[in-house]
């Protein structure tokens, strides 16, 4: 079970008894420097909490080796201990007297503390229930939105087959269709984000790589144009021998989607994004994206989960991580290179993959 954020509402310093470490600050009383020092320098504190973890009864008050009181309690099934307080009624002893003299703000009635711990446990229980309810409803919500997306896309497609349709009515429908395709790609990314085991699926389809990337480029072209960015596709297209590769039809399109979208997000206006699909030899092809963006002020691992570009247009930091996951599923790896320029940087993502 992961650490609960509710523990940060504890009024006094708190220890997670499943993972014993220096007590974390309470929201009213912080962990004293004395406790931090003692925990670090000696083993008595850790031994004390280990013993409590094994033997303590719910809401039982015990005295630590240095005179503070400690109360074990159950945070919705996860054992914790509130510590660093002086109880009323007192437990007794010289050490407690010394701690009470040095920490007058840490005095608290036991009854109040017991009520506080019960409230914390209840809050944690409700938080977990809310999460569970959300997790149940989320897939259904996405499912309904996808169905709506399907209806929009397919209806636009049906209307577009009407030869009598003039360009005044045709162009908006094409925009709707492309936006809908973009949404579909986003849903596939969400699917993978929610279930990374999909990156373990077998490669089940033969796909013509240039054609697939071409489709992605056409879909994202309006978005690029709206940001005054040129999106160009180069390489071994329809006039050359097609480049075929064995891919997973569920996940592979995530790679060009993420890389193209990422390039559009970070490119400067009035620059070009060059997308290239090229055969290097009879059994190896290369897919690459070059763009020009703001200067990167620090070196970061762009493929690490949660790492963002740090700009207002940056996403949540999952796209490149997932794209790399899918690349590895296909026996490939996306390489990133940054070439510093005068006022901007040139970015290059490339991936080599088996083909025929």
């Amino acid at each position, binding site marked *: 079970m992961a650490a609960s954020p509710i523990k940060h509402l504890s009024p006094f310093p708190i220890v997670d008894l499943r993972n014993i470490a220096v007590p974390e600050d309470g929201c009213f009383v912080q962990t004293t420097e004395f406790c931090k020092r003692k925990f670090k320098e000696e083993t008595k504190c850790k031994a004390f909490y280990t013993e409590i973890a094994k033997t303590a009864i719910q809401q039982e008050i015990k005295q630590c080796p240095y005179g503070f009181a400690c109360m074990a309690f159950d945070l919705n099934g996860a054992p914790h201990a509130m510590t660093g307080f002086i109880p009323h009624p007192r437990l007794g002893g010289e050490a407690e007297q010394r701690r009470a003299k040095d920490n007058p703000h840490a005095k608290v009635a036991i009854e109040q503390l017991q009520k506080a711990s019960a409230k914390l446990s209840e809050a944690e229980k409700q938080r977990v229930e809310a999460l569970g309810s959300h997790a149940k409803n989320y897939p259904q919500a996405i499912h309904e939105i996808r169905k709506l997306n399907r209806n929009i896309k397919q209806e636009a497609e049906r209307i577009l087959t009407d030869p009598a349709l003039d360009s005044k009515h045709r162009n908006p429908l094409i925009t709707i269709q492309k936006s809908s395709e973009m949404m579909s790609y986003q849903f596939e990314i969400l699917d993978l984000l929610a279930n990374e085991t999909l990156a373990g699926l077998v490669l089940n389809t033969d796909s013509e790589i240039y054609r697939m990337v071409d489709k992605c480029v056409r879909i994202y072209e309006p978005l690029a144009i709206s940001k005054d960015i040129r999106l160009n596709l180069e390489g071994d297209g329809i006039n050359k021998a097609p480049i075929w590769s064995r891919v997973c039809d*569920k996940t592979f399109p995530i790679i060009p989607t993420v890389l193209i979208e990422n390039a559009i997000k970070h490119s400067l206006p009035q620059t070009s994004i060059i997308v290239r699909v090229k055969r290097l030899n009879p059994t190896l092809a290369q897919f690459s994206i070059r763009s020009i963006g703001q200067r990167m002020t620090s070196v970061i691992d762009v493929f690490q989960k949660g790492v963002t570009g740090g700009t207002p247009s940056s996403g949540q930091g999952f796209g490149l991580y997932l794209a790399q996951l899918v690349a590895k599923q296909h026996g490939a790896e996306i390489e990133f290179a940054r070439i510093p320029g005068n006022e901007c940087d040139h970015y290059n993502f490339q991936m080599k993959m088996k083909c025929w």
Partner: protein
Amino acid sequence: MMRGLSFIPFMLRFIKRLFTRKNHVDFSAYNPSFIREELIKRCRIVVIDDERPALIDDLSNQGFAVDHDGSGNDTTKIEKNLYDLILLDFGGVGARFGRDEGLSLLRHIKRVNPATFILAYTSKSLKSDQSDFYRLTDATLQKDAGIADSFAKIESSLREALRVDRIWRALVEIGASGTGMKQEVEASVQEALRKRDIKLLEDTLRTKLSNNSGGELVSKLIDKMIDLVGKYTSGTKP
């Protein structure tokens, strides 16, 4: 001396492998190619989905033979190999086969007729313990795919469904239980193919396979296979 003696069984196995004729039958060389109109004429599709998707009408309008099954609870036609392609939804179907809905139904279909090509046809976000739905199906068609993309996927799936090597693998799985049986069948079939004798191939398959479990299904698969090999040998090459 002892080390030399232990080397002998290894050498004997190596020599045996060297001189034993491999019985693996490569049917992939006999796959005929089909133009779109032939696919439309030959194939039957079923969409198993608790909601009737508009794609069914699009397919029908193009001339495809397509059925809709809202529950997936009656798999008789699938077991008789009446369908070449199944578009299988995840949610709301297959209640008769287990709690995992479409996944339970999928497992049942794979057991009773491994020859049928199955497209995972869902837009539901599946959890990791449901990922077998993608692993066990042959390919994926997103429910929110466009019509043109859906058609392209369905047509390429139908071509896969009509591959002779695919039907052969299913036949061996259903009709030839045991390694010894499988090798015997493969040896006989290979001989018939070497002689390019369709009649001999058919007689061989019916003699060797029809007596085992899966009687009617095996017979229908043999019919299909002979038809496809015959089409290949009559001139339509990939």
